């Protein structure tokens, strides 16, 4: 018993070398249920992970699994219900975020909704400079804006135009330029390519990679498309109904996944290769994702899991390190693998 407490204490220390870390992050949203009853949607429930400097951590899962909420709570765009957030070893769970906003930025999913239609591209990219008082003269400001636009493959001509004059891919570039304007260290990329055409997706993905190399950026890359996430990430975490169910090196996760949910997720992805997809054996999952208002007891995946038994209903599986750097939360890992 004493050992466990000791270990828990140890866990409260931020991990060495991690730029961003969350410990037992919880984000609950109140929902009115009847006149005086309030229920809680446990959008993110007890999630812990770290991201090392210069690394890309991918986060995948189906809609409603809490991956976007995780990204936003981590930036404290929502106030977390519980848990701790560390940035570069410093606890920022209750800190004044202003100085950290310069270091932590976000690129949103929908490039049509995330740019103010009444502002010029120059002003959109310049706004963070104004807020953080990074430009000391008008000249410096416009130089900086042009430098940013240049960096994302746009040019000075674009600065005086409005968002509606741009295509989806170009708008996403503007969103990235805005995030880069304050010279951040860490960027949350929240489904940055899902709204784009296939031929444009690769442009943006490559740009993220190049920027990372040039500027030493650290990413949390959130997407539902595992093929894209695997391509860009060093490590990948898989979420299901507010819980992290598996986390491993991206190669390890795609080819030697342990958790039954990850396995079925991977097998469900259509392979763009006719011969291989004919051989591909799909592990079909029955049913739908349960409502996050009323998650199943014990393991949240048990209602769709082919291996579920009484233990899964009674007890929640621990998210444990199965092999070095490979975490999974399941009671029956030995039986399944």
């Amino acid at each position, binding site marked *: 018993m004493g050992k466990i407490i000791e270990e828990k204490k140890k866990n409260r220390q931020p991990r060495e070398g991690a730029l961003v870390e969350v410990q037992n992050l919880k984000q609950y949203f109140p929902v009115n249920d009847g006149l005086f009853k309030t229920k809680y949607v446990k959008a993110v429930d007890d999630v812990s992970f770290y991201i090392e400097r210069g690394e890309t951590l991918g986060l995948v899962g*189906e*809609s409603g699994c809490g991956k976007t909420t995780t990204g936003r709570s981590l930036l404290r765009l929502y106030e977390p219900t519980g848990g701790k957030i560390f940035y570069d070893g410093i606890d920022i769970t209750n800190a004044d975020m202003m100085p950290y906003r310069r270091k932590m930025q976000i690129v949103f999913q929908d490039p049509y909704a995330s740019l103010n239609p009444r502002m010029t591209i120059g002003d959109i990219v310049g706004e963070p400079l104004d807020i953080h008082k990074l430009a000391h003269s008008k000249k410096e400001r416009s130089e900086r804006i042009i430098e940013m636009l240049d960096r994302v493959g746009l040019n000075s001509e674009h600065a005086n135009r409005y968002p509606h004059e741009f*295509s989806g*891919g*170009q708008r996403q570039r503007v969103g990235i330029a805005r995030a880069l304007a304050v010279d951040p260290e860490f960027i949350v990329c929240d489904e940055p390519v899902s709204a784009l*055409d*296939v*031929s*444009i*997706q*690769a*442009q943006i*993905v*490559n740009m993220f990679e190049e920027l990372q190399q040039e500027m030493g950026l650290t990413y949390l890359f959130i997407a*539902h498309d*595992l*093929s*894209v996430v*695997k*391509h860009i990430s060093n490590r990948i975490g898989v979420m299901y109904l507010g819980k992290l169910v598996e986390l491993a090196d991206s*190669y390890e996760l*795609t*080819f030697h996944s342990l958790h039954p949910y990850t396995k*079925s*997720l*991977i*097998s*469900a*992805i*259509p*392979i*763009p*290769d*006719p*011969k*291989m*997809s004919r051989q591909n054996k*799909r592990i*079909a*999952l029955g049913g*739908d*994702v349960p409502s996050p208002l009323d998650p199943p007891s014990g393991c949240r995946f048990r209602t769709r899991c082919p291996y579920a038994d009484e233990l899964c209903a009674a007890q929640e599986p621990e998210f444990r390190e199965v092999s070095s750097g490979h975490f999974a939360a399941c009671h029956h890992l030995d039986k399944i693998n």
Partner: protein
Amino acid sequence: MSNLLLDIKNLRLSFFTPAGEVKALNDVNLQMNEGDVLGIVGESGSGKSVTAYSIMGLVPFPGKIIGGTIDFNGHRINDMTEAELREIRGNEVSIIFQDPMTSLNPVYTIGNQIREVILLHTDMNKEQAHKRALELLTLVGINEPEKRLKQYPHELSGGMRQRVMIAIALACEPKLLIADEPTTALDVTIQAQILELMIDLKEKINMSIIMITHDLGVVANMCQKIVVMYGGKIVESGTSDEIFYNPQHEYTKGLLRSIPNLSDKERKKLIPIEGSPIDALNPPAGCPFAPRCDKCMKICLREMPEYTKISETHECACWLLQKEMFEASTGGEA
């Protein structure tokens, strides 16, 4: 030899917007046999959905067919009146839309919406229609169908709603099912369920499917024949093996290079197609892909190339192939 079900010849369709004429389809030719699963691939604005809608006579305002013919199952769709079209829609050809959230009517029950189709197109009475609706829901794999018939769309999940849409589409056992990005709004595990269901049902009631999607993975899985569209033009068509293993058009090649493959063991760099999609109001005069093409030649900007036949089933419109053909026929002297 199976019968020709659909034959589109030189279809030209434009949208007459206040800003000018947008040529959505430019000489589209498409043939399809009974029992085929045909995939139409392309990016947004390439004309893939409009092609499919025109088969049902559903060209949205201010669009207009300005040339060419559509023959479906012995009907000439262009010449049909609205009343005649209504006979075919839902009966011989039906459609599943992309967004299951908005394509069901929120104020009617599921049962009501399924029965409506049956009552409209068959001689069944209400009781028989109810039975048929139950059958259909069971067919598309919905549990507790009796209960679901009384529910409203908002009570169902996305995957369930798409199943209901499929049930409605299948109510009269159509010859052709058009699926317009049927799984784009769904999660991958649900997508897998729906695709499996569609293939299953195709075998059961022997229908043909046109699958419109931007996801190359989905077409590789489902379709025997693939048509690649770009800027209102079919740039390449062939069997799925031909398109994936022997692509000829630079756009098709670029598309295949630019998608990450989950089963790749090594980390490859993606090779994107540079540039932006075409401006529909000012399309290029020649090949629509020319402004983004690495191997663009002078003639590409001026004129649209003819189709080159690579095999019995494989066709591609590219000047490079025309050039090769010409050089081969003159023995390489030119």
